[in-house]
Every structure is written in structure tokens, then in C-alpha cells.
């Protein structure tokens, strides 16, 4: 194979991560450099050229380049998108502002909603009306659209969202309006709801389409720039982008639906978990990505990530459900907890120790960074507890100031609480763990799953330092810290496959729907998907091409739907009874019961079309011929809650650990981007690919309680 390398690069908030993998041998090359927010493509080139150099590879040797970026999310959060206008059916332009009419915080008198992407003065209406079945009640007033175009011109709008009622049943009016606008204003980018989010519920569709329009101009320019830079570097093929639902799509698809790229970096991290899981034969994982400001949790079952069809971007009340802009796109479901290395500890109104959700971020960062931060953070606590080596943070690229950390703990917390720096540090560790524990537990319970069946797949700068404790308290099967935990998202990119998700609402009682219409909707989505695959060079009959159909169904009278997967032949033959069986079984599994006497209602049809995942071998490492002692760098005192005290803990060099080596907890394993902390009831081993496993014995609970009591008395 001439071009046998796959390249993934993930532009995150602080760092840009790269991975280059040889598809034949599995040999990987990693790089990491600072993100350059003013022009992210510069950072990409800064990191990419040395990486290719190191691998001895030219641009043309790269078979596929896959990119994830925070650009879209950031543009929405920072309100740095285009000057956007909205055109709606006459009488409904205020729907964008009225929303669901619910309050996300029931006790906050002063609560504010997210700032609107389109102010009322740029929201236009035009006469037209469809009924619930998409039949035209009132024709589109084309002159009215032209008049709006004139106003858009005068107003200097750069992007337009068109959202008409019931357009998910009939796109004709939206398409025609877009056509007229294009004639009048060829440079304006236009998003129409029947293409962006053709699903029922006008507010969510309007919010999604508006957000898409808002980021479209900058995304177009951005993708063109990255593509050009790659060309200049000798890569002649198309750039691919990671999308929120876990597939990759070509540049044009990404430009049409930029909103589908939300959270693409974190999604790639979940895919990496699945990829590693496959190599190890472990299909049930909870991925745990803890960085500077947040921890992200996702559930993987049978090598598939749990998905959801709605997401909120830019929550104004941090992490509070309902305080962001709703975006209705298929997403790998990630829950975000305000718990990261930079999370700030403080004492609340009741005199309790709280951690987060405010974060010191990277600048000024934790007190121990010595960049002017004076507030105690999780990283400061971890340093004082002995988990981090002050001289080996980021592999020694940065040194940490233990005294600054202690001082922050003492002055900000210790004084008020009457605790020593160490006690405050232990408290922070315990509280941040409890926060993550509660959120993870609840998320797993909502999915009707049992944490004891899952492994915790830990990565991100702070993940491996907290994974042992989290998994232990959840009684999980164990912890996996993948090889190269610092560039896990990039690993997810290189292993991703071309895939796209479609949705169309089509409402009706299952037994009364004209079935040829149901079939037509599914066939149209499948065809669209197969054409996208072909555009990406994957033949529709290539091995591994999958077309998966799903239906959002509910008992008639229910307000919310359950998504079930339905075999293509069942849809083709209109086997309604079979669909009902599938629904009842899923409903029973999820909620413990089903009302088999109630008729079923179809709400939305969904189709995923995807190519086979690339088969990339993982490189096996030579078996160890010596014991783990050779990898030990030394020891240092570290605190373990289970023991209730500091103990002299062996510290190992991750890069010197070899397959077959066994370690006993407590142990600390250091690598450049993260530190693995394993407590006294851990057994550690290295698998054939260099992944680190932490096995958990039953925790010595009685001992820990005694230890705690002793400590409390001493306090």
C-alpha cells in the first residue's frame, strides 16, 4: 500500500494532539503541541511537520487525515459566530425566544437564559403554512421572501436560518425560500430546518437550525484553510472530520452541518475506548476523561457507545440541565461533570467543603503552577497528597510549586475549617471523588445498567489519578489506563469509520400509517447515506457497510419516545407486530414494564449508514524478562484514604513497564501526560499492548473506617 498511514489530530482548548498510525504494523507516532486559538491551523502545522519528520513519512503517505475540533463549541459558547438572521412562518418568530417555558433552576429568582443567537430585530416572518401532514394550507409568499432578502442585505446579515412549521414533513417551502434568498444574496449562507434537523417540536428544531447557521460561515472558512494547509504539506486527499455521533464525514458534509461536529474531540475519546476494548475483548466500558475543567463520562456496551439525540450547548448555569441552547443532533452521549484538575475548592454558606464547578483553567491555573493562581484546586490537593512529582509534571516540562499549593490550601480553606493543608487536600480529593461518583452512579442507573459489569477506561490529564478510587467505590470490574493516555482522542480519530446519521419525523399510529410512506422515508435516508459513502470512496456494496434503521416509538398518549432498532426486512415488509414486540421488549428492559394494550405511535425515523471500521492492529510489545523493579524510579510518601495515612509508595516509569509485569498497590505510575494512582487494594498488570490494568480487590472497608475515625479524632 502506497499510502498506509492514518493521521488524526484533535484541536482541543489547550493542546492539539496528533497520532499517526501505520495501518499495517500498528506502529504509532504521537505528538502534542499548544493550540493556537487565533489561527488553529498554525498549531496544527507546528505539530504535524515534526511528527511526519520523526516518522519519516511524507504528506502523500497519509491515506486519510481525520480532524476533531472545539471550534464549533467555542464559537457558540463565546458567541463568536456570524451575524445571523431567522426566517419563520408568519406568527412564530418568537418561538426561538419563548423556548420550552421551563425554569432550569427552581429556586433562583434571578436566573437568566442563554443569550439568543438571533435578536428579535433580526427575526423575520413570511406568509406560508403547512398542515401536520405537510400539505400546503397557504402558499409561500415569494415576494415576501424577496422583501426579507432586501432587509437582510440592509442589515448586513451573514447567515440565515429558515424554519417553517411542519417542514420536516415537506421541505418544499423551505427549499424554495432558500432558493430565492440564494438568487438575491448569493454570499449569504443558509441553513434550512428540513435539512439540519427534520424532527418534530418547533423550538428544538429552530434552536438547532439557528445554531447551525450561526457557525456555518466560520466553519467553511476554517475547513478550507485546514484543507489548504494539508495540500501544501503534500497530502492530496480530502480532509475528514469527526462528528458528534461517532463517525467521520467529508469536508462538504461538515460545512453543510457544522452543528454535527459539536464535542467531536470528546467523542473521539469514547471511540478510542471502544477501539482499545476490541483489542482486549472488553465490550462494556465506562469511559472517564478528566481534564482541567471537567470530567466526561460515557457508557459503552457491547462495543457500542450509548447515544442520545439531544444536546445542550453553552449552559449559562454551569452543568445545569436546561440552561443551554438545545441542539437536536445525534450524539454519543457524554455527561459532563464540573470536576477537573483546575476545579476550585471553597467553603460554602454552611461551612462545608465544596469543589467546583468553577475552575482555575490553564491560566492562572492551580496555585502550584506558580502563574499567579492563589485558589486551591484539585491539582494542588493531588500534589500535596504525594500523587504528583513536582519535578515531573508533563514529563518535567513544567515544575510544580508544592509550597504554593500548601499555602493556598491553608489560607483559603485551612483557616476557616480548622484543618491542616494535608487534611484539606484529602478533603478535596474525597469531595471531588464523591461528586464524580454521584453523577456516574445516577447516569448508569438512568441507563438501567449495573456499574459492577463495567471497566473504567481512564484517560485525560487527571483521569488516571482518580480512576482507582472512583472504580473502587463503584465496585467496577477494574480500571484500564490505555497506552498513550495523553493522546487518546487522537487514537479515536484514526480508528473511526465514515458514518452518518439521518432522522426524519413521521408521526402516526403504527397500525394506521400508510406503510409505503414509512418505507419511502427510510429508503431515502439510506440512499442519501450510501451516496455520502460513495463520495468518500466507499462502494455501497463494500464489505462491512452497514445500514441501521431505528424508530422513535411511544405508547399513544406518552410525551416521550424510546428509540429502538428495527431490522430492514421488518420495515420493508411492514411487520407491525414484530416492531411492537421489539418496542415492548426495549421498554420493559428500560422501564420494567410495557403497556401492551396501548397502541403504538411512530414519531421519528432514524437511519445510520456507516462503513466498516478500519482494521488497525495494535502493536504487541515484547514480554518482560525482568520484574517490575527495573521500572521503579523511587518512592515518595502518598496518602491513601483506605489506610488513613501517608505511606512510602513506589513510583514507576510507565515507559519502562513491559507486558507481563505485575505490581502491587499502593503504587504510582508516571508518564508524561498523566499519573496513575493505584491504592493499597490494587493489583496492576501490563497487557501485551502496553495497556495498564488495575484489578480491584474487595476494599478493606472496616480498616478504612477505623483509620478515618483515628484521623477525625486527631483533627
Amino acid at each position, binding site marked *: 500500500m502506497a499510502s498506509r498511514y492514518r493521521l488524526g489530530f484533535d484541536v482541543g482548548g489547550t493542546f492539539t494532539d496528533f497520532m499517526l498510525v501505520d495501518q499495517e504494523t500498528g506502529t504509532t507516532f504521537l505528538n502534542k503541541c499548544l493550540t493556537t486559538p487565533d489561527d488553529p491551523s498554525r498549531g496544527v502545522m507546528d505539530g504535524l511537520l515534526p511528527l511526519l519528520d520523526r516518522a519519516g513519512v511524507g504528506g502523500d503517505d497519509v491515506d486519510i487525515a481525520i480532524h476533531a475540533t472545539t471550534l464549533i463549541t467555542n464559537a457558540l459558547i463565546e458567541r463568536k459566530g456570524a451575524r445571523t438572521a431567522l426566517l419563520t412562518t*408568519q*406568527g*412564530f418568530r*418568537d*418561538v426561538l*425566544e*419563548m*423556548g*420550552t*417555558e*421551563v*425554569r432550569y433552576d427552581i*429556586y*433562583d*429568582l*434571578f*436566573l*437568566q*437564559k442563554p443569550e439568543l443567537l438571533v*435578536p*428579535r*430585530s433580526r427575526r423575520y416572518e413570511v406568509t406560508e403554512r403547512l*398542515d*401536520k401532514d405537510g400539505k400546503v394550507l397557504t402558499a409561500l409568499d415569494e415576494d415576501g421572501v424577496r422583501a426579507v432578502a432586501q432587509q437582510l442585505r440592509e442589515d448586513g446579515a451573514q447567515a440565515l436560518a429558515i424554519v417553517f*412549521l*411542519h417542514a420536516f414533513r415537506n421541505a418544499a417551502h423551505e427549499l424554495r425560500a432558500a432558493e430565492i434568498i440564494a438568487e438575491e444574496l448569493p454570499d449569504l449562507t443558509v441553513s434550512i430546518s428540513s435539512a439540519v434537523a427534520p424532527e*418534530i*417540536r*418547533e423550538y428544538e428544531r429552530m434552536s438547532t437550525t439557528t445554531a447551525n447557521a450561526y457557525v456555518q460561515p466560520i466553519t467553511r472558512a476554517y475547513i478550507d484553510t485546514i484543507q489548504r494547509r494539508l495540500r501544501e504539506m503534500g497530502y492530496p486527499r480530502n480532509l475528514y472530520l469527526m462528528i458528534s455521533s461517532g463517525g467521520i464525514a467529508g469536508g462538504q458534509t461538515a460545512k453543510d452541518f457544522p452543528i454535527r461536529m459539536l464535542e467531536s474531540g470528546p467523542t473521539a475519546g469514547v471511540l478510542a475506548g471502544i477501539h482499545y476494548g476490541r483489542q482486549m475483548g472488553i465490550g462494556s466500558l465506562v469511559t472517564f476523561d478528566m481534564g482541567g475543567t471537567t470530567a466526561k463520562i460515557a457508557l459503552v456496551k457491547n462495543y457500542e457507545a450509548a447515544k442520545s439525540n439531544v444536546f445542550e450547548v453553552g449552559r449559562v448555569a454551569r452543568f445545569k440541565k436546561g440552561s443551554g441552547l438545545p441542539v437536536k443532533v445525534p450524539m454519543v452521549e457524554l455527561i459532563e461533570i464540573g470536576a477537573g484538575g483546575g476545579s476550585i475548592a471553597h*467553603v460554602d454558606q454552611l*461551612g*462545608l*467543603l465544596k469543589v467546583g464547578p468553577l475552575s482555575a483553567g490553564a491560566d492562572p491555573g492551580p496555585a502550584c503552577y506558580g502563574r499567579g493562581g492563589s485558589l486551591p484546586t484539585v491539582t494542588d490537593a493531588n500534589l500535596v497528597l504525594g500523587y504528583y512529582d513536582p519535578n515531573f509534571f508533563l514529563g518535567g516540562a513544567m515544575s510544580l510549586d508544592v509550597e504554593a499549593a500548601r499555602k493556598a490550601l491553608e489560607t483559603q480553606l485551612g483557616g476557616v*475549617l*480548622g*484543618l491542616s493543608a494535608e*487534611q484539606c487536600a*484529602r*478533603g478535596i480529593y*474525597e*469531595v471531588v471523588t*464523591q*461528586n464524580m*461518583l*454521584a453523577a456516574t*452512579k*445516577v447516569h448508569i*442507573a438512568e441507563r438501567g445498567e449495573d456499574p459492577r459489569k463495567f471497566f473504567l477506561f481512564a484517560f485525560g490529564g487527571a483521569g488516571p489519578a482518580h480512576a482507582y478510587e472512583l472504580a473502587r467505590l463503584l465496585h467496577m470490574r477494574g480500571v484500564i489506563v490505555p497506552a498513550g493516555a495523553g493522546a487518546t482522542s487522537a487514537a479515536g480519530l484514526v480508528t473511526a469509520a465514515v458514518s452518518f446519521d439521518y432522522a426524519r419525523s413521521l408521526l402516526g399510529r403504527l397500525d*394506521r400509517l400508510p406503510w409505503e410512506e414509512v418505507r419511502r422515508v427510510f429508503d431515502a435516508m439510506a440512499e442519501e447515506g450510501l451516496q455520502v459513502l460513495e463520495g468518500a470512496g466507499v462502494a455501497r456494496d463494500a464489505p462491512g457497510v452497514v445500514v441501521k434503521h431505528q424508530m422513535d416509538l411511544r405508547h399513544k*398518549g*406518552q*410525551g*416521550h419516545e424510546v428509540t429502538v432498532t428495527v431490522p430492514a426486512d421488518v420495515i420493508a415488509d411492514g411487520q407491525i407486530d414484530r416492531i411492537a414486540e421489539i418496542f415492548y421488549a426495549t421498554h420493559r428492559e428500560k*422501564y*420494567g*414494564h410495557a*403497556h401492551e394494550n396501548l397502541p403504538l405511535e411512530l414519531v421519528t425515523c432514524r437511519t445510520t449508514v456507516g462503513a466498516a471500521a478500519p482494521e488497525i492492529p495494535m502493536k504487541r510489545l515484547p514480554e518482560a524478562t525482568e520484574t517490575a523493579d527495573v521500572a521503579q524510579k523511587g518512592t515518595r510518601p502518598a496518602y491513601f484514604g483506605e489506610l488513613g495515612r501517608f505511606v512510602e509508595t513506589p513510583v514507576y516509569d510507565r515507559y519502562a513497564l513491559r507486558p507481563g509485569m505485575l505490581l502491587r498497590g499502593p503504587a504510582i505510575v508516571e508518564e508524561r501526560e498523566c499519573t496513575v494512582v493505584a491504592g493499597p487494594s490494587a493489583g496492576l498488570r501490563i497487557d501485551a499492548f502496553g495497556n495498564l490494568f488495575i484489578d480491584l480487590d474487595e476494599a478493606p472497608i472496616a480498616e478504612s473506617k477505623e483509620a*478515618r475515625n483515628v484521623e*477525625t479524632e486527631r*483533627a
Partner: protein
Amino acid sequence: MLKQNGLDAVSLEVQWGRLISIMDEVDIALVRTSFSTIVGESRDFAVIMLDRHGRSIAQSQLSSPAFTVTLPATTKHLLKAYPPETLKPGDVLITNDPWLGSGHLPDVSIVMPVFSDGTVVAFVGAVAHVADIGGRLDFFDARDLYEEGFRIPPSKIIIGGVENDQLMRLIGANVRVPDMVIGDIKAMIGAEQLGAARLVDFFADYGGGQGFQNLADEILDRSEAAMRAAIAGMPEGEFRYGLDADGYKTPLRIEVAVSKKGDQVHVDYTGSSPQFTDASINCTTNITFADTYYPLKCSLVPNIPNNEGLFRPISISAPVGSVFNTTIPSSVKSRSKSSFHIHVAIYGALSHAIPDLVQAGSGSFWAMTLHGTNSDDGSVFNVHILPNGGKGATPRTDGLPTVAFPYNGTVTPVEIVEYQAPILVHHKRLVADSGGPGTFRGGLGQEIALEVLGQTAIVASLRPDKVRFPPPGLMGGKAGLAGSYSVNDEAVDAVPRTLQPGDVYRMRLPGGGGFGDPRARPLADVARDVDDGYVTIGDALTDYAVSFDAAGDARRSTQPTE
């Protein structure tokens, strides 16, 4: 601060967090197993953990606020009937008595004791609004409790682990949808069993029943201290406010006297209307207390998770036989028509004491139901729409447009309404000039117009409010625009009515009240409001004394305009 009862800031935070997380799991279990959409989707329920005295300690984070206040009172009533020392493992208590419970029959309370070493050390309780409890359908007109459905006095629904089959059958025989109601009751019990099991694990980790009680005492004491400290910061005195509300057939008078003495608040309702005999809008004291406590919590300690310690410094009184202390067997089903106005009166009174922490009157929600038969296939539809008016302004924020307060719920989307019923919605839009003028403007209300399609008439039941008496402003802010409604542009009365095909039903929900003198509203804000069409040029002049010159620049008249 460090060691009361031996619990430090960290242990208390971690253990309290775990209790809340246990209740969040109970909440999910209930949602997952409930049968009705009211529990499963509308979330009209609460799940609560109580100590052995029936005092609330923790609840799920999404628990409905009023229930978190009523259930501890209900539990204490249940314990009067069944003292803790008489309870055995496997006993589960139930009641829906409005005077002991949450103020009307559909709210069923179920409480399960949790044992440690053979004695009761805690309770896990739930209140949920079940799908039906019998009684007349036109419940606004109920004349007494007996017309409102089935009453369950304090009873055991499970006795020593065995289901009380007779009671179950009695309940089933008295409700319209027995499967759903019995299903929800069983789901509540099942969810509580999970909570009890989790609590037993907690006892094992943290010092058994006594460890739990120490923790409970600490939570209650710290919370109480925080509430008392917040109250102590208020000026001393008695603060009064009076308010008229639409009521049902005749208006309702609300009089409050909020007395702040030291670190306590007492609210007295003397002077409020006597209880009604022609409208089911009467409140039992449990619900009066819950709706009195809610605005105080929002103002004083919004971030502390609810527990009984926060209630302790607050007390109420209302004359026996008045609308806020109604006597058995008054009709109470539509109590929220009265209780939802309580916060307006309290904030009116508190505006004299803590003007920085109050809110002007809100437009609130109108519950609308459309009922009929589809002419094409003969199927029956029953569509609920819960649109909201504007929220009241506060001392630092304009009121949000069209948002629920104090109730919290989601409006039904237009596309769903049109799918479910032969209805065409002509428009759903904000009403210009409906927000009460003020330094901070009240939130805008909305207008919805809908036309009946098809060939058959439908029954529309609308429960308008704040039509006669609009949401008041505070501190010089003006009232929001009152609500109104019409059929084919003609005024009609409020009772449920038949709409013929082609009829257009138009409802205009009220705007929120304004806060502070409108003439102190910054020019730029008035200009932006005019630019966005929230305020018309005419009202900018009359309400805000702001005019615009030919170039469009705003300026304020020095002379007050009238």
C-alpha cells in the same frame, strides 16, 4: 464550625452528598417503573429521606418543591396514627388526606420505615400526583371534598411485607384508571425499597442508625443556622401586603403580615377571604405553609438543599375557615388557584424589608385542555397545553418572557398540538407592551390564537388567571398587562365551552410586573426594547418618558408625562 457531633466539613459534605445521590437513584427508579405520564414525564412527585422523627433530611434534586415541604408534615401525621415503636419491618404507610398530605386527593403519600438493629431509624417517603382519584370531572365546581374523589385515611398499604389487598382493591374500584394508579403506587413502594436498601448500606459504612441520626442532626442544625442567619440579616418589623386575585366565580382576597423578629419569620393570613363553598380553591395549612416557605427559600437560602432545618424558623397562621386554613370537608382540588398567589403577597410584604431579594408578580400558567373526537377516524383526543405568562422583574433583572413561576413545567409544542388535535395555531407570539414598566421591566406575556378544524365541535377548558387582577409591580414598578381571552374576537366567560369548527380561540397571557420606577430605566435599555419591539414607541413615551428624535436617538423628557 469544625466539629459539631464529630462531623467535619469534609465528612458532612461527602455523606450528605451520598444521601442526596441515594434519593436521586430512588427518583430514577420511580420514573423508570411508574405507569402514568404524570409521574414519569411531568415529574409531579417528590422522593424524600426522613429521620426517625419524620424530619426531612434529603431528597432527589428534581423533587417537586411543594411536596418536599408537605411530606415531612404528612409523615408526622402518619406516625401519630402508627407510632414508630409499633412499626415492623415490611410495613408501609399511606394517606392522601388533604389535611394531612399535600392539600388535595390526587397527591398520594407513601412512607416506608427503615430499620437498623430492629428499630426504626429513618424513613423513605414519596408523594406523587396519581393519574386519577375519582370525583367529578368539572372539579372547579366541586362543593365539598366528597365530590372530589376517594380519600385514604392513614393506613398500611403493606403490612409486615404482605400487601393490603383490601385497600388496594378499594382504591382500584374508585378510580377511572386503576391499572395506572395501582401501578404508580407499587412503583412508589418499589422505589422506596431501593432507597431503604441503599440506606442500610450507608448505615454499615457510617456508624449505623446512630451515625445516621448524628448526620441528620448536623444537617438540620447547620441548615437551620443558615436560615436563621439569613433571617437575622433582615430588618425587624411587621410587613404587610394585600392582593386581589381572580379566584373562580368570585375574587379572592389575600392579606399577609410578615413578622420578622430576631431570627424567625411568622406569616399571618388574617384578613384573607373566607373559604369558598362554590369553588374548589381552598388551601389546607400544609399547602399554605409550603407556598409560604417557597418564596422565602428563594430569597434567603436558594442554594441549600431542602431539609426541615430550613423550615424551623418559619411559621404561619390563618383563621380557621379561611381560604388558607380551610376546614374539612371543603373542596380543595384546585387549591393552586389560590396558593400560587401567595408568593406575590409575600414578596410585596418583603419589598419593605429586603427589596434586593424579591420579585414582582408573574403571569404564571394557564392550563388548557382540548377534548373531542377526530372527525376523520373517530379517535378521541385530549390535549393539554400549559402556556405561561411573563415572569416578574427583580431588583437586578428584567423578567423573562413566557416562563413558568412558581409552578414549573413545559409548554406543549405547536407541532405536537396540531398533530394531536384538529387545531390550527394561527400564531404564538410575544405581546408588545405586556411587561410591567419598571427600572427592570416585567417579562412579556404571549398571545396564542387557535382555530378549530374538522367537522366536529370540541370542548375547550381554559383556566385563565390574572385577567381581572394583573400581576402587580413592586417598588414603583407597574403591573404587567392583564390576561384576556375571546372567541371570534368576542369576550366570553371562563367556564369550559364548546368550540365549533371555524371558531378562533384567542388567549393573551399576562405579562410580569415591573420593578422600580420606569423613568429610572436606562435609556439604552428602553431604546433596545423599542428596537426589538418589546415596547412600542407610544408606551416608551407614556411609561418610560422616553422619546426618539428623527435620527432615532432616545432622550428622556424632563417633565413627567401622564
